[in-house]
Each structure stands twice: as structure tokens, then as C-alpha cells.
């Protein structure tokens, strides 16, 4: 009998505890303005936990972004949070890259650009940062200038280890869009030399649009390519570019 009473009391308590907890209202979407301390505050407070604090804030940014982008679309504190994380952990690449679209969503592409530039200065050997800078410059810039700025970043990314094969092609194409025809022609030389069958085909197609149609003018325009390529590759390319002129 005593055991039955105890079991009943336990059951009633379990019901009360679970009942109270499950009826708590879900946490409402937080205020978009979150207090974010200055990076100096944490640097002074706990230098040995600098990266751990940055990681905690990184988790916070992801949750904050998800919560607000699907709700009120207000991302007021994203710039300050990203600034904090990248200041505490300058070699942490992901927040710089995340800033491209998070800050663009927050209506602050210039802040994203500045942050990515800071990331590039701290990580000059990572191709993803100049690539992202070029992308941001092209999607948010104006006029021909945007293509030239993007091309400048893609050129930098092209020279960094681990970059994908399309990077030099992207840089050359941007130069063409920016009106830098001569520079663009020169960029295609190494692409042809180092590239596979597809890259070579793209080179020929692009040079066809960049080079003048007249034979003499075309001959003159391809001369600078000679400086950028081995002799065999150059002759092979010439054969492709002048096959319609040999008659």
C-alpha cells in the first residue's frame, strides 16, 4: 500500500514537472539589437580564451542570422558580431566569407567589403578572400569600374595556391568586361598553356571576341602573348586563331 502511494505521488510530481515545462511559452524572436562588447574588452578580459570566445560568438551569429532572416529580416547586430569574431580570431576564414551575403542582406555591402579586405590582409595566401572580394565588387559596384575592380581581385586570387582552374579565366573575362582588352588578351596566354582541352577551347573562343578581325591588326594584337607563353604553345594558339586566314 505504501509503495502504491509513493508511486502515485511520484506520478503526480512527474505530471506537474513535465506539465509546467511543456507549457512554458517558446522563446520569442529576440531583439535584433544585441549588445556586442568591443573586441578589446575580451582581449583584456581573457586573452587565453580569445578563439573560444570567437567560436561562441560565431555560433551566436549563425543562430541570430537564421532567427532574423526568416522573421523580421533585421540584422542590425551582424556587423558588430562579425567584427568581434574576426578581431578575436583573424585567421578564422568562414566569418569573412559569411559576411559577404549576411552583410549584403543587412544592406551593408560596403561593410562586408571592408571586412573582407581586412580578412585578406590577415590571410594573404587564401584565394577565397580575394575571390569573394571580386564577387562582391562586381555584384554591388557600378559601371565599368566594377568589372575592373573585380578583375583585380580575381587576378590576385589566380596567383594563390589552391585556387580553382576557372579563376584566371574569370579574371580575364572581367578584364574584357571592364574594357581592358590588351590586359585581357595577355591573361589568356597562361590559361591556354596550363589549361586542359576545355580551357584551351575557352581561350580560343574568348580571344576570337577580343582580337580584331583584320589579319594585320590581329597579328599585331597577339604579339604581347609571345612574352607570356612557351614557343610551342604560342604557335599552337596562333594556328587556332589564324586558321580562317590561311587561304
Amino acid at each position, binding site marked *: 500500500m505504501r509503495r502504491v502511494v*509513493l508511486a502515485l*505521488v*511520484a506520478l*503526480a*510530481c*512527474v505530471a*506537474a*514537472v*513535465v506539465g*509546467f*515545462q*511543456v507549457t*512554458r511559452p*517558446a*522563446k520569442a524572436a529576440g531583439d535584433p539589437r544585441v549588445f556586442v562588447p568591443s573586441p578589446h574588452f575580451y582581449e583584456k578580459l581573457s586573452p587565453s580564451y580569445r578563439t573560444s570566445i570567437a567560436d561562441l560568438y560565431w555560433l551566436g551569429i549563425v*543562430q541570430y542570422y537564421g532567427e532574423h532572416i526568416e522573421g523580421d529580416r533585421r540584422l542590425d547586430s551582424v556587423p558588430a558580431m562579425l567584427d568581434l569574431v574576426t578581431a578575436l580570431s583573424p585567421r578564422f576564414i568562414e566569418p569573412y566569407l559569411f559576411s559577404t551575403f549576411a552583410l549584403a542582406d543587412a544592406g551593408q555591402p560596403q561593410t562586408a567589403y571592408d571586412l573582407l579586405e581586412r580578412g585578406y590582409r590577415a590571410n594573404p595566401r587564401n584565394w577565397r578572400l580575394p575571390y569573394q572580394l571580386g564577387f562582391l565588387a562586381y555584384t554591388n559596384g557600378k559601371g565599368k569600374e566594377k568589372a575592373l575592380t573585380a578583375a583585380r581581385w580575381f587576378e590576385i586570387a589566380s596567383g594563390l595556391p589552391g585556387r580553382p582552374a576557372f579563376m584566371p579565366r574569370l579574371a580575364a573575362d572581367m578584364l574584357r568586361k571592364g574594357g581592358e582588352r590588351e590586359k585581357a588578351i595577355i591573361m589568356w596566354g597562361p590559361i591556354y598553356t596550363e589549361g586542359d582541352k576545355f580551357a584551351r577551347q575557352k581561350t580560343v573562343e574568348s580571344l576570337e571576341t577580343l582580337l580584331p578581325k583584320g589579319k594585320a591588326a590581329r597579328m599585331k594584337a597577339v604579339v604581347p602573348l609571345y612574352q607570356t607563353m612557351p614557343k610551342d604553345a604560342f604557335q599552337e594558339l596562333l594556328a587556332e586563331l589564324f586558321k580562317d586566314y590561311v587561304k
Partner: protein
Amino acid sequence: MNRALAIAVNTFRETIRDRILGVIVIFALLMIVGSLWLASISLGQEGRMMKDFGLVAVSLFGLIVAVFVAANLVHKEVEKRTVYVIFSKPVGRTQFIFAKFLGLAATLACVLAGMGLFLFFADWAVSKAPSAMILAATALIYLELLVVVAVTIVLSTMTSAILASVLGITVFVAGQLSRQALSLTSLGHSPVLKGLSWVVYVLIPNLNAVDVKPAVVGEVAPDWSLVAAWSGYLVAYAVLCLLFASWLFSRKEF
């Protein structure tokens, strides 16, 4: 019933003899020095500061008493072998655990009443007006601490007194973050993780469902119906812990 009462009274006497009430004196000294200091730096807000920080101090001092005494409550009886004498009488394990808890609850009531009353009168002297909300807030802190005592007793039946103390404090901190545990249940898409988050959320005592401090400093009136529901929840949680501790204790052989 009389036997349980005798154990409870004995526990109360034993803990009082351990000079637990000295905590009130330390608290009083801290509040006197603190109020003098706060008066000089709070730009005329010493009453508000005293109420707010005073209640935080009540909570922390109470926590120290609750956890360290509760962790030793059962251990001491086993180590000194007095438990053999007790169990040679017709006393059940459940009766024993509940009686020990009641004894400590009475001690904690004295400690918190002492600190709460001192804070009440000190604030009255500083603010020139009595604030009954201080006493209500102290009562709620008392209920919270009873849960911590019950959890620490469970832990002390499973592990050493020191580890039980540390874990008891950890549970108090986790209880203050219960709302964050609730927000974990809505993150991610995995049903397994969501289920686990719910289990964690229900298992951790919810010690932050109500915060009466804003009401004490004159900001917003508390939702009394929520206070009542939360009080019921705390009592139910403590009873559950004690039943679990009794079950664990009944499996021990002496």
C-alpha cells in the same frame, strides 16, 4: 511520523550547531559595508542597489549553505555509522531521506529568514519605506534552494560529498539557463536531437521561470498566477528528487 520528526529536529539542531547561522552575520556585515559603499557611487540609487544586490547575495549565501550542508547530510550519517543505529529502529529509507531534507529545510528557512529580514530592515532604513516584496523574493529564493538541496541529496547518494557539492552548484547554474535549454529544442532539424533537447530541458530544474527582482526594485508587478504555478512546480520537482534519492538509498547495503 514521530520518528521522522525526531530525525528532522535532530538534523536541524546538528546543522545549527555547525555555526551555519554565522552566514547571517557575514551577510549583515557585507550589506552594511556594501550599502555605505553603494551610497557613495550610485548617485542616489543606494536603495535600489541594496535591494537588487542584496537579493543576489541572499541567493548566493543560501546556495553555499544549501549545497555544502546537503552534500554532507547523508554522508556524515554513514561515515559516523549513526545510520546503523537509526536503521536498527523501525525507520524506512524514504522516511530517513525526507526527514533529513526537512531538517535542512528548517535550517535553510532560519538562514534565509535572517538574511531576508536584515535586508528588509536595512533597505527600510536606507529607502525610508518598507518593501514587502523583499520578503516575497526571499521566499521564492528559498523554494529554489529547496530544489537545489533535493538535487544535491540525490547526487550525494551516488557520489562523494565534494563532487555532489560541485554538481549541486552546476545544477543551480544550469537551472538559471533553463530558458536557453528551451530555445535549443527549436534548433536544427534532427528529431533525435530535438527529442534529446526536450529531455535535457525537462530534466534541468527550471529556476528562472520567474524573476521578481524587477518587481522588488519597483519596475513591473510579478505575474502571481505564474509565481503560484512555478512554486507548485518547484515543490513537485523537489519531491520527485527525494523519492529518487530514497530509491537510490534503499539499494545501498549497510
